[in-house]
């Protein structure tokens, strides 16, 4: 895996969303109302490298910035800070042709199969639109090409003239996958791509993802809250909490020896399909609002091992074993007596 060249690299990438005050609010503030511009650090100085042919799982709960990070990778958001490198070249320095190539090279598969399809276009149009717009195949062959794509994702090409609402949830997701595949991408960003599907359909779509990876040598950034799915698919797992990466490791190692207390809590809390009554030992506290994250280590208010340093100093992401990174003060400080 290390031999593979990096496909994309994010260097200390941040994304902030600021809601500017409108006129009325500015006037109100003039009169002394306590209104402030609200800034969300959706992604906070994240480093991430995805190698060619690799499947990276990105896990976290709501507000952790995993979807924002995915959209940065897919080119839908511009990072507020930091650099985005494609095959080792910063995107601003890419040649025109390479930039055009990159625009299609990373495609996204969305969570909601209905919302991600234009309800007024037919399946064939949805899949073929970008192919036609970018003239990827000759016009005369376009129809066959679309049929080929539909077949590849397990859809009957005869359904090309149907509208999205005439398909089932699983079929809609397949249309979304065919649409992405049609522009011959190198990498797919899957944002909770099976979360909205029925349980019996999830396995079908996951299998499709795995087949496609083998057939096309695709690279995946697989974003999910479902640890089971991520464990099954990924080579490497990245755990995020409130905009920051807290742990990153090869899949087997992460599930066998989670280092960060948050990762440990996640693994503990995930529902398991096992016989026998289960005792829940949930981690306490709520997920803080990303608008007002706690100082120091974001996780410290919920962490059972938190000590003074955690409340003031942000832990750095450090390599604790080959390829295994964790951002926790416990790794550099001897564990205090009380826990």
């Amino acid at each position, binding site marked *: 895996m290390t031999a593979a060249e990096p496909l994309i690299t994010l260097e200390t990438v941040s994304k902030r969303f600021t809601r500017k005050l409108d006129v009325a609010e500015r006037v109100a503030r003039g009169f002394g109302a306590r209104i402030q511009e609200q800034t969300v650090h959706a992604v906070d100085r994240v480093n991430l490298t995805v190698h060619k042919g690799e499947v990276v799982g990105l896990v976290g709960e709501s507000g952790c910035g995993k979807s924002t990070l995915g*959209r940065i990778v897919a080119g839908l958001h511009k990072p507020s800070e930091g650099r985005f490198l494609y095959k080792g070249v910063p995107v601003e320095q890419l040649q025109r042709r390479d930039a055009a190539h990159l625009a299609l090279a990373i495609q996204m598969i969305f969570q909601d199969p209905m919302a991600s*399809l234009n309800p007024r276009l037919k399946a064939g149009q949805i899949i073929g639109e970008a192919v036609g717009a970018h003239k990827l195949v000759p016009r005369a062959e376009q129809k066959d090409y679309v049929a080929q794509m539909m077949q590849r994702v397990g859809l009957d090409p005869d359904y090309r003239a149907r509208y999205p609402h005439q398909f089932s*949830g699983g079929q809609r997701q397949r249309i979304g996958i065919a649409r992405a595949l049609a522009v011959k991408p190198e990498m797919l960003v899957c944002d909770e791509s099976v979360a909205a599907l029925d349980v019996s359909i999830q396995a079908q779509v996951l299998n499709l993802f795995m087949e496609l990876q083998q057939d096309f040598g695709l690279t995946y950034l697989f974003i999910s809250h479902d640890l089971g799915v991520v464990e099954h698919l990924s080579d490497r797992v990245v755990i995020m909490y409130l905009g920051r990466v807290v742990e990153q490791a090869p899949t087997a190692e992460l599930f066998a020896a989670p280092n960060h207390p948050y990762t440990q809590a996640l693994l503990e809390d995930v529902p398991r399909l096992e016989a026998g009554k289960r005792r829940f030992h949930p981690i306490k506290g709520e997920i803080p609002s990303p608008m007002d994250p706690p100082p120091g280590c974001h996780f410290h208010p919920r962490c059972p091992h938190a000590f003074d340093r955690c409340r003031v100093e942000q832990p750095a992401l450090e390599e604790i074993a080959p390829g295994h990174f964790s951002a926790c003060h416990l790794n550099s400080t001897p564990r205090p007596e009380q826990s």
Partner: protein
Amino acid sequence: MTIQETQVQDEVVPPAKDTPFRRTLREFAASRVAVVGAVVLLLIIFAAVFAPWIAPQNPYDLNEIRVEHSRLEPGAAGRADPESQSLPVPISGEGESGRETLELSGSVPFESAEASWEWVAPERVAVSLDLQPEQNLKTLEQELRVEGLPRGAELSVGEKHDFRNFWLVAPDEITAFEVQLPEGHEGGFELEIRAQQAEGEIEQVYWLGTDGQGRDMFSAILYGLRISISVGVFSGALALTIGLVVGLTAAYAGGRIDALIMRIVDLQLSFPAILVALLLLAILGRGPDKVILALVIAQWAYYARTARSAGLVERSKEYIEAARCLALSRWRIVLRHMLPNCIPPMIVVGTVQVANAIALEATLSFLGLGMPQTEPSLGLLISNGFDYLLSGRYWISVFPGIALLVTIVAINLVGDRLREVLNPRMRRDE
């Protein structure tokens, strides 16, 4: 709070021919009131479009309007001018008697006439007329007029006109009379007898009465509808286009452009539409083009606001992100993806706004600022009839009013149903 059908219907795969349009149509038809509204509206639009072929009269053509027929009640018959005939009786020189078949002009009331005369005294001649058919004498309205008498001559029947030189004779006395010529009269002379029918032929029945100028109200309403609806639709279509472009631009561009556009919209919306339109027309003057311009300026902001909010909703959907991910051009995303999905709410606003435009135009015309007198819209018709309302001639005002009311109610019924069918929040699936 109940279970929606979503849960049950989620995996239902509808038949292949089920296009969004058909589905909308089917759901629309589920409401009987809305269907009635749609049928009425279609009838009204049909009547307005084909008014020149349906209307018995062209109310703008002064040649077709008869001032004599003004203010007729609903159901009154409109008659042509009664026809008249002149019978020239050439009476030859003194002492002779003669008989002549008269040359008739016109076809009514008599088909043929013969006159015979006899000089009964040097200055006195007896005339008798044989008119066929005889019974038509009874349909004559008034006295026949006997002209061409020598000055000072007198008839044995009828009466002389107060100051002009002809006599008026009752129909039953015309068949035989004597003429007393003044002394010293010599030679023959030619009498001319004019007969006029009591009533003209019925040209048309004014089912809805006539107005002060003698216009057929039914025709005037059809033409008025034509004007009102076309002004409403034209201004609506223009305002919708402008609003759509402006609103989608604001939604897609966001930031400062959005803020600027929406402040202008807010400003515009803070004035009542009627006030804006009144001001504009006061400056521009009357005329259909100016009315349309005023309505567009008064209403584009409604469309822009709707287009923007619909655009924002669509823009945040994942399929727009997908389109951006596929590196499709901005224009393509706006025109092919955002625009078609913003149309349903625009249609809803459009129907309501067209109804408003029609009402607004009627108001302006009623106030005397809208359409010119030569092209009366419904509002102007109502206004014209308003003066007669208190004198009991209700129909001049009331019937155009009803037409306006029915039109607006029908549009609103259709619009309300469209809102239910097209509003995403009330939708059952998607």
